[in-house]
Every structure is written in C-alpha cells, then in structure tokens.
C-alpha cells in the first residue's frame, strides 16, 4: 500500500505525441518537482520522499518516457534530453507551477541543472543527487567493455551490452542495481529497482543509450553548470558506481552550491538513506517557502 495517494494525476502530451504521466501530492509551497529518476526506473523511485515532502510542500513527480505510465518511444530521438526536458517543462505548466524547486538523481540531476540554467525565473533551487553530467571521464568499469560486442558469455560489467540486455534483462538489472547499492542489507531497495526496471526493459534502455545527451562532453557539461544562478545542493554517495563521484564536487564548485557527501553511500541514497536525504531536502527547500503575510 502507498503511504500517500496523489491529489491529482494526469498526462501531458509532448510535441512528438508521447504522453508523460505526472502526479501531484500535497498543497503546500513551494512546488517541488522530483524529476524523472532515469528511464530504467520510474517515479516510484521517490516513494520515500513523496509523503514527507508533501506534508510541507507541493510535490510533483513524473515518469520517464518508456516507463511507468508514460508513453513508449520508438526512436532514440524521443529519448533525447531535449524532448524529455520539454516534457518536464510542460508538466510544470500543467500543474500551474510558475516556479519550482527541482530535484533529480543521475540523469535527472543533470536535468535539474539544465532547467535551472535555461529558465532561471522558474527555478528557485536545484538539488542534484549523484549528477550524471560528463564533467569527468566515466568510471573505468563503465567503459571497459564494448556495448555492441557479441560475446560468448557476459560477466560483471560486460553485461552492460545491448545483446546481453536482450538475452537476459533481469539478470543485467539485478547485477546493475546490486552495484548501485553498495550499502550492506539493501535487498529491498534492489528488489524495488529491479521490479521497476522490468517495465522499461532492454528496448527502452537501448533507445536511451542511443539518444543525445545535453551533457555529452565536458565543455557542454561545464556550460550547463555555469549557467545556473539559483542555490544548488549536491548530494553525493562516495561509493557511487554509476557516476564518477568527482562529478558531484565539480557541480558544486561550478554552481557555487553546497556539497553533502554521504560517506559509504551509493548511487541511490534517496532509497537507502531516505531519512537523511529527506531532511537535507526539507532544509534546502524550506528556504524558498513563501513567508507568511504580515498580520
């Protein structure tokens, strides 16, 4: 059972016809948009944040293309950051949020920074958890093996391979999320993510892999960060096996933001250390709360 049901849920339709599913929780201020957490999982990845934040603020979540209740792309162009970002702006329009605090993890964290830079008047603050911008080389294991190579067998990170994804998506997902949660005793978090990944699957992730990333190289990624004018909070797991942890400190440096490192934490601290992340988010977002009118 969910801890809290949405007050509103609906869809916007992107220019390419893909529907983006969104939900709204609570009625406070400001609006906090927990951006799509990545294509491989969907908005339930924020389940530990939504009910708590919704007691204080208005919370919006949306599903990525190809997962959750959003529509299913058929080409890589429909996974491009640009169209995803346009979809997320459309969600903010649909819920009537002129301004919002944006929170993202991994690719979504990059989205929060891109959106903050391109529409500064609409973004009060951005929180980037283990941001997925190419500010450094990737971690070695992420580029050690050819994504396209057909192998007789696949071990470890060799499973990050288009052929293996088609062959045994569940096994890849179990391996990948095992890596994403280096914290001991994370069985439930891994199970959840694997479960959510089964509704995207190999086809969607292959499209996403072939899409155009806004932060595709270091200059583009630095420019994204340098364009940000609002307050920024970066949360980094020191044992992140998805994004090079150095990227977090570079984001904080370039944006003048605050960096909170979770020593011993992995890629998805909002799931494994939900209390700490919730309190960090609350304290960050609270500063944008509208003061009570003078009595």
């Amino acid at each position, binding site marked *: *059972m*969910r*801890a*809290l049901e949405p007050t509103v849920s609906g869809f916007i339709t992107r220019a390419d016809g893909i529907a983006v599913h969104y939900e709204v929780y609570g009625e406070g201020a400001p609006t906090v948009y927990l951006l799509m957490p990545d294509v491989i999982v969907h908005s339930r990845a924020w*389940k*530990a944040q939504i*009910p*708590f934040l919704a*007691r204080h603020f208005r919370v919006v979540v949306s599903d990525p293309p190809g997962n959750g209740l959003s529509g299913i792309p058929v080409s890589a162009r429909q996974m491009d950051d640009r169209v995803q970002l346009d979809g997320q702006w459309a969600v903010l329009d649909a819920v009537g949020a002129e301004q919002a605090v944006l929170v993202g993890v991994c690719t979504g964290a990059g989205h929060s920074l891109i959106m903050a830079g391109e529409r500064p008047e609409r973004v009060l603050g951005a929180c980037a958890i283990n941001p997925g911008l190419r500010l450094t080389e990737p971690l070695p294991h992420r580029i050690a093996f050819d994504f396209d190579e057909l192998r007789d067998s696949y071990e470890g990170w060799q499973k990050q391979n288009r052929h293996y994804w088609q062959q045994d998506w569940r096994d890849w997902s179990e391996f990948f999320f095992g890596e994403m949660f280096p914290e*001991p*005793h994370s*069985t*439930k978090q891994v199970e959840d993510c694997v479960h959510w990944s089964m509704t995207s699957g190999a086809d969607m992730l292959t499209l996403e892999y072939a899409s155009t990333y806004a932060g595709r190289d270091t200059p583009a990624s630095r420019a994204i960060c340098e364009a940000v004018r609002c307050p920024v909070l970066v949360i980094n797991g020191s044992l992140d096996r998805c994004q090079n942890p150095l990227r977090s400190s570079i984001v904080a440096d370039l944006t003048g933001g605050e960096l909170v490192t979770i020593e011993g934490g992995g890629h998805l601290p909002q799931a494994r*250390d*939900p*209390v*700490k992340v*919730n*309190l960090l988010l609350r304290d960050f977002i609270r500063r944008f709360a509208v*003061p*009570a*009118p*003078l*009595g």
Partner: protein
Amino acid sequence: MMSGRSRTWVRAQRRPKRALFLSSPIGLGHARRDVAIAQELRTIHPDLQIEWLAQHPVTRVLADAGEPVHPASAWLANESAHIEDESADHDLHAFQAIRRMDEILVNNFMVFNDVVEETYYDLVIGDEAWDVDYFLHENPELKRFAFAWMTDFVGWLPMPGGGDAEASLTADYNAEMLEQRARYRRLRDRSIFVGNPDDVIDASFGPGLAGIREWTTANYDFAGYVTGFAPPSAAERAAVRARLGVAPDDLLCVVTVGGSGVGEALLHRVMEAIPLARRLQPSLRFLVVTGPRIDPASLPRRRGASVRGFVPDLYRTLAACDVAVVQGGLTTCMELTAAQRPFLYVPLENHFEQNFHVRHRLGNYGAGRCVRYAQASDPDALAAALVEEVSRTVAYRPVETDGAARAAAMLAELI
C-alpha cells in the same frame, strides 16, 4: 502581530516531564498492555505527561482509556490497512508484508521525527515501533531522548514455503539488526521483552549468526507477560454472562480474530460450522466479535449466533466463555490463557510470528489447541474440534499478573 515563524526554547529546569508512547498499530494486541504500562508508569511518576503517537485501531482503545493522542498522529500512514491489503483469505505473509511496508515506515518515522523535534520528551517508548528503532539506528544523531524498545518476539523467521531465498532474506534482516545493536548500544536505553526467557524461541538468527534465545537473554530485560488486567473473578464472569443473556445451562463460544481486518475469512468459516456444532451440542451459543475494522453486517446470520463489532475490554467476554475460536495472535490467545479458558486457535498461514513465536509460547503455558486453516475450512472438522474443546477442564501455567508493573519499573528508571 508576529510575522513568519516563531519559536520558543524552554529552559531545561522548566520543562515538564514528558514521555511519548508508540504502540504497534497492527491490530489491537499492543494497545491494552501499553495502556496498562502507562498507567503503572504514572503511579511511579505522577508528574509525568504521557502522549501517544498512534493510529487506528490503537486510537480506539486510547479514546476509551482517556489517553491523549498527539495531533500529529493524523499524519501517520495506516499500518493495519497495509497489512489487510497484503492478506488474502486466511493467509498473511507477515515478513514480506512488513518488508513491503517500507514506504509507510519511512513516512511514519518522519512524522515521529517532526514531533520529537518540536517537543521535548524525556522518554520515548516504542512497543514494536519498527520504524523508530530501525531509523534511529540508521541516523543515530536524531536521538535526543531516552529510548525504550519493547517487543514480544525477537527474530525474523522464514516460512518453509519461502525456500532458501526467504531464509537468506530473514537472515539478512536479523544480521542488520544485530549489527545495529552491536554498533549503537546507546540507541536503546532499555530493551524490554514482554514475556519470559523461555518464551523466546530456541532457533538461530541465520547461518553463522547467534542463537535467538541466547542473544535475547543476554540483551533484553524480561518483564513477564503483560495482560493489562487482573483476571476476572467468578462473580465478574457470571455478570458478563448474565449481561450477554447466556442462560446457566448454555455453553458460550466466543469467536474473534483480533483488531485488524485480517481474519474475516476465518469468521466466515466459523459461521459455516455453527449449525453443525449446534447439532452436536445444542446448548452452544455463539458470540462473534468482528473487531473495529470488520463490518459486522458483512457476516451471514446464524441461529444461535450474535455478531458484534468492537467490544471494549474484550478480555472480560473472553474470560466468560466456555470455549473460543480465535486467530493465532498473541494477545487474544494469552487473554484466554490467563483466564484458563479452552480455545482453538488458527494461525494465519505464512505468518511466521503466529506459526512459530506465538505457538512456542502457548506451548510453554500448555494452552490452546492449534488448528490449521485447512482443517478449520472443513465445517464438520471445525465443529467437531470445537465441541471436543468446550468445557474441557484446563490447567494452564498461570500467567503472571505483575508484568505491567515490572515493565513500568524498568521504564521509570529512565526518567
């Protein structure tokens, strides 16, 4: 007028003595004993203010007892509703249901944390408040009060149907708890086991881990069982029977499945067996108590049976019966044990606590007859078992009556 937020800091010596009580909200099992413990605690510390962070159905009992419920309780997500959602027929995979309650537990911990941030408490008492115990160990800097943990079982146990996968999960959960306790002794100022050392199951936490009884004996204080009441006298028993309209020659069978909405299936099975049981023993009269979360109107009518919803102080009614049919929940079974009444209990399938921990404890008292749900689903078999038990003379090991006072004395030292 003030604008914006205002705050007050109360100087330490001016603060009233306050305790926050959290009573496990899955069913009603903990509510009565916790009210009894709170009352004993007030006799030791008359100046202690006790507030409750509680949800339905516990709030039902607290309202009757006049206990103050903290307004933030309204923000709690309902654990009983989740458990009801997880159950099907007479089956509740308790371990997996609690795992899948993770988002509710985070939410409820955050509510708790907000409450203790805003109000000074000298003591927090968590009777199986899993969220508070777990997340305090994960976020030790959030502890700002004495914390007393209470439970009536220790150790997640796999059900045989779950195979190796479930055994490895329960072992992992047990290992995490053991690591938390080993690293942060200071998190719990007291660990109180509601029961006696021999009530702790003699099993292992998992491969390579300690024995549950050995570890629990070394790490807990034992309060004895807490019924929360003095056993009703013969005169009180007679008065209850008279009030219920039970004639002197009638035999009263009370049927109850506890305080959550899980167990409705068993109530239906008993309804099917009632005509057969009355054919075998025409003096039988049935009182079916659906509890606060099952609508009495949802059950069929039967000659010789009356159906009621929530019955306050159900232990008095249980003590007045000649036989009872109940689920395998600890509290109801122990109320019948304390009252020395014969009873059939039908554990929920796949509920590790009811099938292992409770059954083990009832065995210590020599109390009750365990009936599997498959047998209870055969109306002839259930009727026959019930008629066999009715008015059987029982001689259970007596249940201690000082458990609430002993638990309160342990808590009182922390204030």
